[in-house]
């Protein structure tokens, strides 16, 4: 298949050899599981259980609120200890509502929904319902509710399902191992998803540094003529949805539009596997493979972790820290976020836990920008990081917005190459946050203005009505009589309060 070049990008030190040959190991159930109500983009799920209740594995313990939301299921059987605020695996260190479950050791499945015998005979709606019911979200890290993405066949004309097996971040090997060990499950899931979307073609994009994964997936896909496995060049950020689409089709997704507008829907390979489990066995998403790696981990590994396991338990399972890490990162080193502590849960979008040493991070004191232009050369979005950062440094955020900072998806390529070690991505994250805040404030101000205007009109109307009533009543009653005037007053006040 003809491939197309993508703009910019970098070739970082991948260090995948720390875990790429380690087969997936299953983590034993920890003493407690912390399942947040929100592990996805959208509205948090609504809790269905109470403290003291016994639940079985796979039982829905929180239901999605609306379409842009996902449900949560018990990763094992046990007793609900409580529903309380636990620190979220988020750099802010803020807490979120979390269900705390104590496993009973029996690991008994609940009564699961019936397996769909022939997924290719049922309609898309049935499959999407099952996917939604099973709490499946994008497992590449974005954690967008997958059922919504599978529904796109209704609204747009689609022709390709693109499975994202690029895994372009350094250190991470979870998708690599899943592709090597469970290729048939991924292919089956992909075919089910393609059926739901109505796409005749399936393409699986895998970076060329994973030759065994390409081989095993090609073998598994060989039985199906409409599935093509493609080795894409090793270039960060090849795993970015829009850039993978460009590499494979040469099409550039217009700004503010989805890849679906080009007829292509992208899903992660592990998401496809989760769909296979949900549709064929009725099993909801209750565990995921996490790469635990980094120079400070004693035994780097790829671990099958139950959702809600605490990161401290996971790190202990991997031998603990060989040395004190400079930072523990959730995700890959380029786009991952620092963890506020180890007492946070692993959630559906956690693809990696990296304990990095100072040497690996290679942070140096910041110096002045020397306008070398390396950042411009590597930016995959065609932006000018040095100019945007200069505006942001001087608090001229509108200037940065004009240069397109809202288009930046924080891949980190610019920060990686900057010889002056300027924290470019941090500037852009700050700018995007503030600009979003301002947008929210502007919207709120508009709403407030409308509310205030409506109220003013209402008060005026009420005052008019009051005047009219008084004018009508005047000749009829004597206003000096206390009883009557009291009644009239009460009636008027009642009207005004409406």
């Amino acid at each position, binding site marked *: 298949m003809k491939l197309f070049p993508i*703009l910019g990008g970098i070739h970082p030190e991948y260090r995948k050899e720390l875990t790429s040959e380690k087969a997936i190991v299953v983590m034993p159930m920890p003493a407690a599981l912390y399942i947040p109500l929100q592990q996805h983009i959208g509205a948090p799920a609504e809790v269905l259980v109470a403290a003291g209740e016994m639940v079985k594995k796979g039982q829905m313990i929180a239901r999605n609120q609306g379409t842009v939301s996902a449900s949560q299921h018990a990763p094992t059987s046990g007793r609900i200890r409580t529903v309380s605020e636990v620190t979220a695996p988020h750099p802010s260190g803020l807490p979120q509502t979390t269900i705390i479950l104590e496993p009973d050791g029996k690991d008994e499945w609940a009564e699961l929904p019936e397996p769909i015998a022939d997924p290719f005979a049922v309609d898309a709606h049935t499959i999407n319902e099952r996917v939604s019911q099973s709490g499946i979200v994008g497992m590449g890290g974005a954690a967008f509710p997958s059922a919504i993405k599978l529904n796109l066949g209704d609204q747009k004309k689609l*022709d390709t399902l693109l499975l994202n097996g690029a895994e372009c971040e350094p250190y991470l090997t979870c998708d690599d191992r899943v592709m090597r060990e469970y290729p048939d499950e991924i292919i089956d899931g992909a075919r089910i998803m393609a059926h739901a979307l109505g796409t005749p073609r399936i393409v699986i994009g895998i970076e060329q540094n994973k030759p065994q994964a390409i081989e095993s997936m090609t073998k598994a896909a060989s039985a199906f003529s409409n599935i093509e496995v493609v080795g894409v060049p090793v270039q960060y950020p090849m795993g970015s949805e829009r850039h993978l689409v460009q590499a494979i089709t040469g099409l550039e997704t*217009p700004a503010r539009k989805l890849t679906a507008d080009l007829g292509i829907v992208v899903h992660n390979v592990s998401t496809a596997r989760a769909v296979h489990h949900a549709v064929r066995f009725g099993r909801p998403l209750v565990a995921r493979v996490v790469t635990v790696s980094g120079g400070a981990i004693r035994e780097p590994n790829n671990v099958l972790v139950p959702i809600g396991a605490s990161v401290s338990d996971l790190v202990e399972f991997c031998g603990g820290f060989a040395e*004190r890490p400079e930072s523990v990162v959730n995700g890959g080193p380029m786009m991952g976020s620092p963890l506020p502590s180890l007492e946070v849960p692993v959630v559906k979008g956690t693809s990696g836990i990296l304990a990095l040493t100072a040497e690996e991070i290679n942070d140096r004191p910041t110096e002045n920008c020397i306008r070398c232009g390396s950042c411009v050369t590597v930016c995959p979005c*065609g932006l000018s990081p040095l100019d945007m950062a200069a505006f942001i440094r001087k608090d001229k955020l509108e200037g940065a917005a004009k240069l397109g900072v809202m288009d930046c998806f924080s891949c*980190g390529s610019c*920060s990686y190459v900057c*010889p002056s070690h300027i924290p470019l991505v941090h500037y852009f994250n700050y700018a995007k946050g503030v600009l979003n805040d301002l947008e929210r404030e502007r919207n709120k101000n508009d709403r407030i203005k409308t509310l205030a205007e409506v109220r003013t009109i209402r008060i005026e109307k009420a005052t008019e009505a009051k005047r009219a009533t008084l004018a009508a009543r005047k000749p009829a009653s004597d206003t000096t009589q206390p009883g009557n005037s009291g009644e009239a007053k009460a009636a008027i006040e009642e009207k005004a309060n409406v």
Partner: protein
Amino acid sequence: MSIAIMKKSGPFSHGLNSVQKTMFTVLLALLPATLFNLYLFGWPAIMLFTVTVGACLVIEAGCLSLAGKPVMATLADCSALLTGWLLAMSLPPWAPWWIGVLGAIFAIAMAKHSFGGIGQNVFNPAMVGRTVLLISFPVAMTTWIVPHPLFSAGAPGFFDALAITFGGHMPDAVSSASALGHIKTELSRHIPVTQSMADVPGLMDMMLGYRAGSMGETSAILILAGGLFLMAKRVISWHIPLSVMGGLFLIATIFHLVDPARFASGTFHLVSGATFLGAFFIATDYVTSPVSKTGQLIFGIGCGVLIWLIRTFAGYPEGVAFAVLLMNSLTPIIDQYTRPRAFGRNRKGEPLPLEKKP
């Protein structure tokens, strides 16, 4: 186990490059040509070089401490060292010491720190230094010397050199015109280029460096080697050097074909003067050249054409410094108009139209 809470967002990985490494690589690339030329011109050149570089470092330290910035940390990035080095290479090798010191003041204090320090200057500091010196002290700045290799007969010894550099005692009958200077002077005497070319050193000699000129002008081949080394190390890209040399060569060749008696050939322009030094080391200065590749090409072609124009029509025989300074002034506007196209948008910044699928 508690861990340090990072106040920084990602990424948590970084390439191995740094400002210091980059400057170091450039100095390394300049080293062969510099050493050879110091050998060619002997002790006075060595003294002038030392004085110039030393003055640059001292003035940089002075400006930094005046501005309240950390002195040792900033000196360590080697940018002042590089400026001094390039400035020294553009001076006549036997110039008196005060030329070097004044040049350092103009370059470092005036062209760099008065704009805000590293990264903030509009004009190339070394070239500003050279240009101001040239205009203020035209005689001292155009006294070129034939090479007197170190330890050879006729070369000044250490103490003679002290007299030359610090005593201002220039021995007679050693000055010589540079090739470009000679051509220009002869033209003004109505002697055509074709004839005066016979007096200048042959192409090979010009490439190797056995001719009069500043340290950066001689030994074109070593400068070229240094420049190619820089490109291999990815410190500079091919855009500026190729467009400077290409622009110069093309316009010179065209006019030479039209009137060989008036205009020197393209190859002559390429190997004489500070063309290679300018193309690889001076025009490629990060701070004062455009950041986008298209911008760099425009910048380079502009430099090449201006070099030819100034050499041919203007009052001075050498045009690299002026050409670079003129193009430096255009860098901000070139940058503004050659910003790359954003992904998913057209050049105006609007989202691309959705392609209608058949």
